[in-house]
Structures are given as structure tokens and as C-alpha cells.
């Protein structure tokens, strides 16, 4: 029994953190809000360089062939800097899915390009109504009624759906059925969609941990220096307890998320339930931290010239993506209590 990461995993995490601190400062996130394609410059390439983008790509296709457990800390770091890139969609979701169901040709065509940082894959399932960054995707992996298929970006007709988070470029997608490149369908399709949904929910939960960590850290710094009534506002017990509650929720969501990554990597029978617990805890913890962060900042946190809102809006968006807390709680109830006890629960493909 050892519930901790290896030194290698921690060193990789530190290296990625250093890279992102350098390559993805708040200005990069601001830039993504206004840039044509909604992305930050160079970060994707730098991450690919380091092996992060291709982390889940089998070594045979030029990746590192690593697991969810190796990825979870890195995705947490991408959340910490509010990375405006579809890394969860491409690295956490699309790659394992393609690896599991795509033809050898398709894998040979796409996996190396992804690992090299030369290709982005966007995904869209019924459980995730909008396709993130479809505008810059080279390939789309979509699902309708458990029918999984790939769609060349050129064949997709996309319509932007503006999000409260200007760095999240969401789209609805339309296409001609005969442009579909079939992957898998039927019951196997349903299983693969569920697995993909679990990976997306887990990756998003990890990013929420990082986002919340950052929000709490900047708030702590702010209340230490901000003075009112002749003392730092951080010396008021009400502020102390707001932030103690924020840390409490965050620190108890953390092991739940890491445990879910372990379950996925080891394909434990409980993995779907564990992932739902993770997304439920991470969504609610991050939402609480964001709420406390704004309240403890006061009016300045309410301005777009201050960075806080970039993180806060990402939290709002991700907390409700890949199934919100209520949805995942129902999924846990379905597993623990059985259909009888758990009214209102649904499968990941029931629309949220």
C-alpha cells in the first residue's frame, strides 16, 4: 500500500510546471481570448516537445505510452495555468480511443502526428454537447447513438457557440453521414464511449484541481497584502475561515481524483464510479474555491483587468463539462444503490 506518486512522476510534473510558468503566463491566456483561433502561441509545440501531448500515444507510434496515472498530475498543471488548449480532448480522450478502436492505417496516420504536436483531435459525444476547439482540429472523433466515427476536419461544418470563457472555443458540428470514417458501434461502441467519457471527466477533474489551487494561492497572497481598517484583510477571522474551507474542500478532492486515475490506469471494476466521485468532488471544490476567491478579493476580483476572472470562468465552464457534480453523483448512486435506489441517474450518454 502506497498512496503517493513516484519521484519520476513528480519530477515530470515539476518540469511541466516550469515550462508552463514560462510559456503560459496569464498574458497567454488573455491572448487566447482575443486571438483568431483561441489558442496561446507555442505552448502546444513546447508540450509536444516534452512528450506531454503524446504521453498516451504508444511508443510504437512515437509517444511515451504512459497511463492516466502519469497524466493526471500534468493535466493538473495545465489547469493551474488555465492552459487554453484542447489537451484533455486530444491527449486524454482521443488518443486512447483511437488506439482502442481505429484501424491500423488510421492509427499509423494520426497517432505519430499527434505525438509530434502536428495534429489536434477534437471530440464530441452526446454527454459533451459542444466540441471544444473544433476550429483548429485536424480530425474530429464524434459519436451518435453509440456510433463512433472519425471525421476529417475539412468535412465538418462548424458553428461557434460563444462561452463565458473567451479562451474556450466551443462549436456545434454538422456533417454528411457519408463523410464518416466508422470506428466502432453497437454495444462495443457504447463501452468505448463510456471509457472515453470517463477519461474526459477525469482529465477535467485534474484541471479543476490545478485551477482551484491557483485561485486559492492568489487569493491568499492578495488578502495578506490588501489592507482595510488598518490591517491586512487576511487577518480577519471571517476571511481566514472562508479560505480554510476552500483548502479543506480542495485537499479532500485531491486524493479522490488521484485515486480515480489509479483506477483507470489499473482498469479496476470501480473505475467509472471512482471517476464520477472525482469529477463530483473536483467540480464542487473548484466552484467553492472560485466563490471564496471572488468574495475575499472584493470589487477588484470583479474586473476583467485583474486576472482572477480568467481562472474563475474556466472553473465555471469545466465544473459543468463532462458531466456536472449532480450528474456524477447520480452515477455513483446508480452504482452504489442500484437502479431501484437511484432515481434520476443516467448513463453518460444521457444528455446533460
Amino acid at each position, binding site marked *: 500500500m502506497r498512496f503517493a506518486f513516484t519521484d519520476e512522476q513528480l519530477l515530470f510534473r515539476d518540469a511541466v510546471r516550469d515550462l508552463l510558468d514560462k510559456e503560459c503566463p496569464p498574458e497567454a491566456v488573455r491572448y487566447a481570448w482575443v486571438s483568431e483561433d483561441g489558442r496561446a502561441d507555442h505552448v502546444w509545440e513546447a508540450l509536444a516537445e516534452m512528450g506531454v501531448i503524446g504521453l498516451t500515444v504508444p511508443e510504437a507510434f512515437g509517444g511515451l505510452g504512459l497511463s492516466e496515472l502519469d497524466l493526471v498530475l500534468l493535466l493538473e498543471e495545465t489547469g493551474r495555468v488555465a492552459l487554453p488548449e484542447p489537451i484533455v480532448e486530444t491527449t486524454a480522450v482521443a488518443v486512447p480511443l483511437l488506439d482502442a478502436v481505429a484501424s491500423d492505417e488510421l492509427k499509423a496516420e494520426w497517432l505519430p502526428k499527434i505525438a509530434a504536436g502536428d495534429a489536434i483531435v477534437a471530440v464530441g459525444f452526446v454527454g459533451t454537447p459542444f466540441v471544444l476547439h473544433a476550429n483548429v482540429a485536424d480530425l474530429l472523433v464524434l459519436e451518435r447513438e453509440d456510433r463512433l466515427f472519425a471525421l476529417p476536419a475539412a468535412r465538418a461544418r462548424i458553428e461557434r457557440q460563444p462561452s463565458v470563457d473567451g479562451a474556450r472555443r466551443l462549436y456545434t458540428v454538422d456533417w454528411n453521414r457519408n463523410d464518416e470514417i466508422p470506428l466502432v458501434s453497437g454495444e462495443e461502441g457504447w463501452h468505448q464511449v463510456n471509457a472515453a467519457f470517463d477519461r474526459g471527466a477525469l482529465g477535467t477533474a485534474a484541471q479543476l484541481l490545478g485551477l482551484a489551487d491557483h485561485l486559492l494561492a492568489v487569493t491568499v497572497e492578495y488578502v495578506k497584502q490588501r489592507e482595510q481598517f488598518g490591517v491586512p484583510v487576511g487577518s480577519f477571522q471571517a476571511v481566514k475561515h472562508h479560505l480554510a474551507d476552500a483548502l479543506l474542500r480542495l485537499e479532500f478532492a485531491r486524493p479522490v481524483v488521484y485515486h480515480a486515475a489509479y483506477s483507470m490506469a489499473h482498469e479496476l471494476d470501480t473505475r467509472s464510479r471512482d471517476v464520477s466521485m472525482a469529477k463530483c468532488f473536483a467540480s464542487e471544490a473548484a466552484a467553492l474555491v472560485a466563490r471564496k476567491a471572488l468574495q475575499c478579493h*472584493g470589487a477588484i476580483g470583479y474586473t*476583467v483587468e485583474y486576472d482572477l476572472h480568467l481562472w474563475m470562468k474556466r472553473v465555471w465552464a469545466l465544473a459543468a463539462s463532462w458531466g*456536472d457534480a449532480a450528474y456524477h453523483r447520480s452515477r455513483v448512486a446508480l452504482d452504489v444503490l442500484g437502479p431501484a435506489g437511484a432515481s434520476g441517474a443516467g448513463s453518460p450518454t444521457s444528455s446533460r
Partner: protein
Amino acid sequence: MDLSWSEREQRFRDECRSWLEANVPAEPLPSGDTREGFALHVEWERKLFEARWAVVSWPPEYGGRGASLWEWLIFEEEYYRAGAPQRVTQNGIFLLAPTLFEFGTQEQKDHYLPRMAAAEDLWCQGWSEPNAGSDLAGIRSRAVRDEAAGGWRLTGQKTWTTRGAFCTHLFGLFRTDPQAERHHGLTYFLVPLDTEGVTVRGVGRLDGDEGFAEVFFEDAFVPDDCVLGGVNEGWKVAMATTSSERGLTLRSPGRFTATAERLIDLYRRMADRVDPRLRDEVIQGWMDAEAYRLYTLADVTNIVEGRPPGARSSLNKIWWSEMDVRLHETALALLGAHGELVAGASEAVDDGTWMKGYQFALAGPIYAGTNEIQRNVIAERVLGLPRK
């Protein structure tokens, strides 16, 4: 106890409802916290004024109807039910006007009130400064006496002034006695923003609108008649009406009961798709708004009968501001993954107004005295717990 409306009040409600039905813009106006939207809202305000609905509770000579508090409540209820535009004049009407009525000279009242009612003068509030947020006594902007010119020279910076970039006038506190500490030596000034030496800089806000402004004063001269109340008595003047029954603390229930009804409507549309437990949050939100309405009816009865709420008005502020956040959180929970979509998204439900409203609601627990301060007030001034 009699919870029915009189014939007169019923007639008032009917008149006001029919006028609103005939005049409220079919298409909701763009946000009044944007330059374009603000202009359209000012048009609307002038229309309201012409029909004498702008300031129903004011005396007729200033453009009102001398309406009772009850009629004011009815007007507000109908106004929000009709989905009429937000009041971009509210800082003047709800915050400055009560102070003018109490402390203004006849000349000041005759000059400012009608122009305020007619939306000719558009007022923003100059309380907060970079170092004076919750703690207004930290104000550093100063006014120096210019005996020769018969007035004062203002220097300093005001911040978080809502819609300041679009307004014509600012009311705020300036330090007139540099020796005095904290709450002493402050004076309440009425300042035209086109005064030489005044610079206004817009600041973007959470919801994307340029709704805030920073206002800089560099040796800006204002004559003596721009002082409201006595020199060095600004704190007393400002505080006297902060819990004014027409002020921020008695937020008209109409706004929240209307939001609750919209939430019920949203739930009906989503009910087949959402977790049944959300039903409880929806109905709790509806009950919270109803409770606020009832609380206000009791409050107004007390005010009308000469029992002002005093420090208890902090209870209202906490309730409506935190309820407003919950109502919007519940709506966003109903929307799930669609909640993040904003105006312009074809897939957005109700054109993204819930996310927009959520961001607006989040300001509630912060401005007009953070809810932490309000809880201190309740504990110390209502429950009598020791300050230190």
C-alpha cells in the same frame, strides 16, 4: 393584519401594468453597462419620466407621483414582472436623492432633483478608492479650500464607479480636513464630470461590460454650492441614508420574485432532462423569494408606522444578495453544460441571460458593504455582541 391591496392601490397597479405592457421594448435592450446600451437605457428613462413613472415616490413638483411606499412596491413588482429595462439612473434615484431630500438646500433640490428624474443628469457614486473599499474611512481623496474662487479643489482617485464612464455627475466623499482621522473631516461633494481636472477611465467588468470606471481628480475646482450638507460632515450625511427605505438595503422584492418565476419556467422546460433533486433547489429558491417579499411587507409596515429597521436592514441585504446568487446557481445547474454559453450562442438557453445574471448577482455580496461587514453589524448592533 390585512394583506389585501386597497382599491386605490389596485387601480395604481392596473395603470402601471397597462402602461408597461404598452411601452416596454419587445426586444430586451443591450446591457446598460455598455456605452451603446447605456444610451438606449437613457432614452427609456426619459420615456419613463414623461409618463411620470421615473420616480413614482417623489413629490409631483420634482417629477414624481407622491406615491406611497406600498405603491412604490407595486410599481417595482410590475416593473420587473414586465421585464422592463434595468434602471441606469438608480445610483442617483436610490442613493443620492434620499440624501438630497434630507440635506439639500432648496436651491440644490430644485436644481438637481428634476434633472435627475428626467435623466438629464446621470449620477455615479464616488465612494470606493484604491485603499478604501469595505473601509470607507480610508478615503484619501482630498478637497482643498480655494477662498478666492469661493469653492474647493479636488485631488485624488475614485474607483469601481459603476457606469462612471457614461455618467455626467459624481457624488462622493472627499477629505476636507487633512488633520482629521478616519470618519472625521470628510465632506460630501456633487461633482460635474466635465469639470476641468476630472478624468474618467472605463474599466472592464467580470461580465465583459465596461461597467466600471476609475475617476481621477487633479486640482479640479467645484464651487461651494456643490457641497451637500455641512463641510466636514460628509460621513454623517452619507451614512444617514445608506439604510434609507428607498436605498439599497430595501431591495424591491419584485426583482427576485420575477427571477424566481423565470427559474420555475426554466425548470418546467428542463424538467425531463434534469436530476429530480434540483426540483428542491428550484422550489427553495421560489420560497426564498416569497419569504423576502413577506419580510419586506412587514418591514414596510414598520417603516410606514414609524419603526425604521435601523441596523436590521443588514438582514435584508444579506438575504437578497445571497438568494440572488443561489437562484442563478440553481438555474445554471439546470442548464448543465449549456450554462457556459452566452448571448449570441444559437444553443444558449434564454440567450445566456442566466450566466450573465449570475455574474451580476455575484457582486451583491460584495458591494454596498460586504456581507462579512453586514454580519458584523448584525452581531454587534442587533445582537449586541462586543466589538472587540
